[in-house]
């Protein structure tokens, strides 16, 4: 009787050990072998984009591994992980001859901020980390994004394209980019709504901002406010930055 009990507990122990080792291997062992190591991860492009919930970001995320002298390292391993249903394709790989690793990012199904964590092993077996922020827009924020493209972007976006030349530099009072969280975050939703509805003069600011209260509906103005809250950088802190999680 006693022997059976011992045998049973031994079996349980073995099973537990097996499970633990299997899990460890699953999460820890690299799928690709590094050919070189770096000491720093830097972001080249693809940070702070936004797209509809669950969608793939338009631009790929490009990260670079550098050595201690700041020179790009080819053949270093980069791994990307994200929570909340977001994922990178590919999830891991080696940096190319230019020291860069490129992946497309697909956002999770809920609106809000997503943090992509990039890691790369160093020669000493430690990991270097880097965090990249992206945002997912729900229906309301996406509606705001589209209204922005129609009505606001010509003056509020300093970037020009061939199809759309920015009017920002032609204005005396420079409009704030909608991503300018430092200025826009402290402004209340009521103030922003008032400026959009009644123009800059509503809060003693420039008349160069025209009133849109008769052009846009209340819902549309709310959508614009939601959009600029969603893309604010630094993030809009009304509720603290919440990263999406499962």
């Amino acid at each position: 009787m006693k022997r059976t009990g011992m045998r049973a507990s031994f079996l349980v122990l073995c099973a537990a050990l097996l499970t633990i080792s299997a899990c460890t291997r699953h999460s820890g062992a690299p799928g690709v072998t590094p050919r070189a190591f770096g000491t720093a991860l830097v972001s080249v492009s693809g940070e702070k984009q936004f797209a509809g919930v669950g969608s793939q970001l338009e631009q790929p995320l490009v990260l670079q591994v550098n050595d201690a002298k700041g020179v790009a390292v080819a053949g270093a391993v980069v791994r990307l992980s994200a929570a909340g249903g977001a994922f990178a394709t590919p999830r891991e790989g080696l940096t190319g001859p230019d020291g860069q690793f490129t992946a497309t990012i697909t956002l999770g199904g809920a609106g809000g901020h997503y943090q992509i964590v990039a890691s790369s092993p160093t020669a000493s077996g430690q990991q270097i980390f880097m965090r990249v922020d992206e945002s997912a827009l729900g229906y309301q924020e996406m509606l705001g994004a589209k209204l922005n493209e129609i009505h606001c972007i010509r003056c509020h976006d300093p970037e020009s394209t061939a199809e759309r030349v920015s009017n920002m530099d032609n204005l005396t009072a420079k409009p704030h980019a909608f991503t300018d969280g430092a200025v826009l975050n402290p402004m209340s939703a009521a103030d922003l709504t008032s400026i959009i509805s009644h123009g800059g003069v509503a809060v003693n600011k420039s008349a160069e901002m025209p009133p849109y209260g008769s052009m846009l509906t209340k819902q549309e103005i709310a959508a614009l406010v939601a959009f600029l809250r969603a893309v604010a950088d630094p993030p809009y802190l009304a509720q603290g930055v919440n990263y999406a999680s499962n």
Partner: protein
Amino acid sequence: MSVRGRIAAAKAFLFGDSARAFGTLSLALLALLTVVPARDYFRDWRGVQKQYLQLIHGRNDAPALTRHFQGGVQQIWLPEIGVVDRCTTCHVGLKESTLTDVRTQPFRPHPPVPHSLTEFGCVLCHRGQGTATSVADAHNSSSSWEEPILPARYLESGCGQCHIQPLTGTPKLNQGRELLARYGCVRCHTMRAPDGTKRTGTDEPPSLEHIADKTSREWIAAWLRDPQAYAGSATMPNFQLKDDEIRDIAAFLIAQSQPYRSQKASEPAPVPSQDDAVIQQGASLYGESFCASCHAVQNAAGLLVGGNLGPELTRVGSKVKIDWLADWLRNPAIYDPASAMPHYRFDAKQIGLLVTFLSSKTDSDFTGTAKAAAAEPKQIERGRILVIERGCASCHAINGLKAPEDFAPELTEVGSRPLSRILFAPGVPNTLPDYIAARIRDPRSFGDTLKMPRFSLPQPQVDAIVTALLAQTARAETLPASMRIPARKPSDYRPAGRAGKLMDEMRCFSCHIINGRGGTMAPELTYEGTSVQRAWLVNFLKNPNTLRPALIRRMPRFNVTDAEANTLADYIMTAWQTPDFEGDASDDLRFTAADVQSGRELFYNKYACQSCHIIDQSKDKGYVGPTLTQVGSRLTAPWILHWLRNAQTLRPGSLEPVWNMNDADARSITAFLMAQKGAPVKEAARK
């Protein structure tokens, strides 16, 4: 004691006499009876509701949340749209706007959308099993589940079940529908909107009836091999043909072609010059004629520059024959009466320059230099069969072939196709969206004999098309008609008479919307007659100068005569009038110098119009709207007055905000603007 002995003892204990047996059976029955309520007690949703109560416990908003909370199975029942949704049993916080800080499911509040949960339920947009009350049953999770939750990236498909007209808030759905129309999907697959109207294509696949006059067999072969190698922006898909199939199809297409003109052109075709200076002159004329408003060309950096109304011209010199090109530039309608390209009225010298420039845009890598050997009749016949098999005539007009009807499976209800009727290719996850996406990305992975060609589309475009196709559900057709937001009726407005003929020749409707018909590249002109002064209009038609300095798309010069300009102006000034201007005849608007002065103040200070418009070239810089330096010679006073009140009623979609300006301000600004005359305009002689 032996095992048998133990069993015998237990039997005696439980069923020893009738009283014991009765007692035992009663206890067993009681135990059985408790199983049912116990199972019910341990259902998923009870645990979830308990968690919710713990979550809201101690929050500031707990009293309100507790008051809203209702325990037990909840249900949204909407019999007329077939909704029986119990999702709110677990998703308790959906309607709680104060829970925005909660980001864990199932308690997150629903993000703001234009529809209420109680009116529409959940599954209409999200899919899933509405009646289920366990997590796995409701959402799916095992593969091949008939009605799994829809991944968030396709959510806009829900909107498309009722909204046939594009919505600002559903860019992905709109894009998907545009792509279905632009890439010719609807020409092979029948697709009906929920109101029964057939979706139609916006592409204009060229007729191949006279193809031999336009291009060579070698070009057709190279094009069939890889259309995107000729033009990255080409919408023609890759049919993944074998080399001999390509050879035979090209042979057939040339063989079936008939001449497009019964006699030779009266003017001899120009001989393209190899002189760089002449090519440069041609390039300048290409620029001045604003060909780039519609046609794109790849620049040195490999980026496409130009519009997408007409085909890309990066390698056009490798494609077209000189005689054809000269004829096309002379008047596109000679070759294709339905072409969207205007009749430019170029003279012989201009045609020569443009032919020189365009024919210099060659790429010998594309066609190669080898001449195709003469086609054998057998090859031509085999080419004909291949053309029929591949359904080429669904898009292109071909001599002797009729457009096949229902060539490919109908897709009206593809968004609700049962998985049991789908054959999945290996490696494709067993869900409907993944199946549709895989079919678009690589149709041949589902079988070598499949006829569907491959469209090289980036992932976001594939997602958009899948979204649009998922909106094609059986449910959409059974929803009550009152829920449908119908598409705007297409207008078939066509101006009559001599002016109408001229407008058709110049293809005004390719760019301008007039009375509901036309393209969106240029301003709407429905009320142009009320808006502008006749003298300005005549002048503009003869020599379109630019009103918006920041625009790269501009009105080309059509080389019209004085008489033609007057005919057009007469028609526009009479027919394109708004009916809403009663009592505002311009005679009543007599402005004083004081009006002009106060208008200037209002223009610059109160309304800051200089943010977007230029009055004084030396200090105003805004270029969102048109330049107003000579607006007093261009627009009419009543038009400006109404425009300042509400421009959207005059030209819906204009960027001009609705000012709702009071009458005094509007009148003063009108006075100021009417005073901006610029240089005097000499009216063209009337005939």
